[in-house]
């Protein structure tokens, strides 16, 4: 069976949609068809991929406009007569063809204060109940495909927000650390002030595209918003800080690289 693909080809400068006809077999996914296209017609077609098993999060792209992993998108999803359109993730700058520059995400990751356990706990001495780590574990299923970052409307068409907004993946990272039973830092104020939690208006687009089915909005972002409110506006917390029973300030966000 032949399928029709319409693929964005080009680089940071400019590009066009190019049509291809490629063989597709039963049970295949988009990435199989792209590989066949590379091997037979377009040897230099740039596609980022690695595990082809939905575990590494490399082959993120937009398939008929929807952010998806090419390795987990089965051909049976489409009408055989349909032309399938493949474009690079729109939120990030294009490097070439279907490959984008996702360095924004690595920069944000580096600004979040790292895991901070009590330094007096020795090797092998951590004791945590399964029920207390379930939530952090859910967030750690994240394969960093950055599809949630791609789809989030706060930055999708608003690059001006990128400085003030870390995106769902990294707000979830903050939630993961905040909910880690052995972490001692406090990131609630910086979640709001430095990472832009307030920009999120819980439209759940991130949750919808997550290939790991992580409930980003319900389990990470909304609870995090509640914690921030508790930290910033709860009179008891305010009093606690005043009389020195609670830390006054968060662990500071790590400055982004200069230049």
């Amino acid at each position, binding site marked *: 069976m032949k399928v029709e693909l319409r693929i964005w080809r080009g680089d940071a400068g400019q590009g066009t949609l190019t049509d291809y006809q490629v063989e597709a077999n039963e049970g295949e996914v988009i990435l199989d068809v792209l590989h066949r296209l590379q*091997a037979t017609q377009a*040897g230099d077609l*740039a596609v980022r991929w690695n595990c*082809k*098993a*939905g575990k590494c999060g490399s082959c993120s792209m937009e398939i008929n406009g929807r952010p998806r992993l090419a390795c987990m998108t089965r051909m049976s999803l489409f009408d055989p007569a349909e032309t399938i359109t493949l474009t690079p993730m729109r939120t990030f700058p294009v490097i070439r063809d279907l490959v984008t520059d996702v360095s924004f995400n690595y920069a944000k990751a580096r600004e979040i204060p790292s895991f901070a356990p009590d330094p007096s706990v020795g090797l092998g001495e951590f*004791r945590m109940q399964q029920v207390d780590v379930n939530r952090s574990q859910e967030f750690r299923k994240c394969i960093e495909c950055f599809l949630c970052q791609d789809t989030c409307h706060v930055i999708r068409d608003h690059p001006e927000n990128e400085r003030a907004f870390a995106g769902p993946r990294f707000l979830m990272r903050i939630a993961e650390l905040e909910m880690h039973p052995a972490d001692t830092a406090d990131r609630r104020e910086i979640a709001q002030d430095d990472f832009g939690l307030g920009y999120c208006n819980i439209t759940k687009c991130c949750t919808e595209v997550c290939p790991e089915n992580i409930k980003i909005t319900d389990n990470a972002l909304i609870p995090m918003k509640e914690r921030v409110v508790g930290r910033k506006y709860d009179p008891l917390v305010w009093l606690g800080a005043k009389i020195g029973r609670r830390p006054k300030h968060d662990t500071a966000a*790590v400055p982004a690289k200069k230049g």
Partner: protein
Amino acid sequence: MTDTERLCYDVVVIGAGGSGLRAAIEARLAGKKTAVISKSLFGKAHTVMAEGGAAAAMGNVNPKDNWQVHFRDTMRGGKFLNNWRMAELHAREAPDRVWELEAWGAVFDRTPDGKISQRNFGGHEYPRLAHVGDRTGLEMIRTLQQKVVALQQEDAAVHGDPEAMIKVFAETTITRLLTDGERIAGAFGYIRENGRFVVFDAPAVILATGGIGKTFKVTSNSWEYTGDGHALALLAGATLLNMEFVQFHPTHMVWPLSVAGLLVTESVRGDGGVLRNSEGNRFMFGYVPDVFRAQYAETEEEADRWYADPDNNRRPPELLPRDEVARSINAEVKAGRGSPHGGVFLDIASRRPAEEILRKLPSMYHQFKELADVDITREPMEVGPAQHYVMGGVEVDPDTAVSSVAGLFAAGEVTGGMHGSNRLGGNSLSDLLVFGRRAGMGAAAYLDTLAAAGGARPAAHEADLAAAQAEALAPLQRTGGENPYTVHAEIQQTMSSLVGIIRREDEIKTALAELEKLRERAGQVSAEGGAAYNPGWHVALDLRNIMLIADCVAQAALERQESRGGHTRDDFPGMSPEWRKVNLICSLDGDRVALRRQPMIGMRADLLALFDRAELEKYLTDPELPPAGQEAS
């Protein structure tokens, strides 16, 4: 060389998987300026695909476990061909390395008393694998990635630049190591994004490039596994050890074809899943080899009792080491008792409640549901063997991880020796941590020795840089050459069909003749397009490495006239104590692979004493055995 970037580091780590990141962390902790070269983006390395867990005798689930038991299991799994010192260091140090990950933020599954939970796995006497559901590799890579970030944050505070002391070069590939006389001087490569060349001047290089899966057609390995480190080591004058031992993991998806080779974790069997043939029989009971007879159940009733009461029952034969299970599945399919798509059935649906399957094996559920429309809580999976791991690799000193070339270190799957002829599941993730750290320490100590000796650092020669650049540019400049994808596919086909899971002299000889012709063709491919992010060019460059490795595997497979672990010779089906004493060493003679035999060093007496004499008799020759009357304590 105008367009070439030139950078100066103390240590260059090639590979950003588990062993590479662990090595880089250690080198940076020792105060060395460290570069990490990643063929993919940071955090995407093949380690993310590891599912089952990291083996470490912490004794959290069964307090009887300790390093001696782990050492014994590892040697048995490798059929005593392991470098025993590596197996010893691994078993002793694995618990600390796993606990260290926890202190760096890894969130493992817990026991009821709040410790790290441990699960059963093939060949391990006690529950030993620290795990996070069936995505342990992802947890490990993310934790190491986040530890690198934490160190960069510390460096930002001290130096004003997060990348002052440790920097990750994402989507960068090294094509040549640079030497100055007998010593390492650096590395040459290209940056994927723009195709520009980059030279790293560094006296210490750590190879952490993983395996060789893309030499074979059906493999669970990712795109990156083109044997880069193996080949770079050979080209720099180092030696490879026992390359004939290739692990075919028994259970991978066989259908749909596009996902053939996708791993089905051994945890399915560790957590109660069983293998059945088309007649519904649990055929593994018929395949327990003599050397393992005493440790495995003989009836289904005993095997089923073992999960709840492991002290009074023997293990189910589905949990034999991987080589045994893979060969058994192969034999069942050959005998016409396979599943519709040429595998066998792996059944957990009829044995465990759906809720438990979903909790313990979420990725497997997801994978089968999304890619094959199979609900593993309701129906059996169809599985079969695929290439999964290579036991052979760079010959290193166990304690310092240095290769036979000064300044060249290696850790993880790219090394040989640790796993002997067959690796136990779970021993890879712990191997990466133990020897990644040791390689980082070894490189740091080497740098200190160099500094103490004074004199100039080793320096790359301009002629070598020019040659490396010309070699890399050749496929782009050549016109009318063959398609690199085609040549790659033919190498894979040749290796899978002629030097695969079952081997014979005439077939290996045919393979070597085929490879000879393919070598000519690999040298004449051309890549269309430019140097910026051009996959065709990358495949063309990978072909040199894949060819070299295929040659090593085939030559060693022809030489070793016995069957052991990941090397099965149809024409020499027995395991030979004489051959156990032999290591096969590959090196480069001009541009050809040369093979020689090297005697195995005898095991230290205190380690030998951990085994019963009766068990040792199955593996060792008479002169190697301890004097009669000495028994294991």
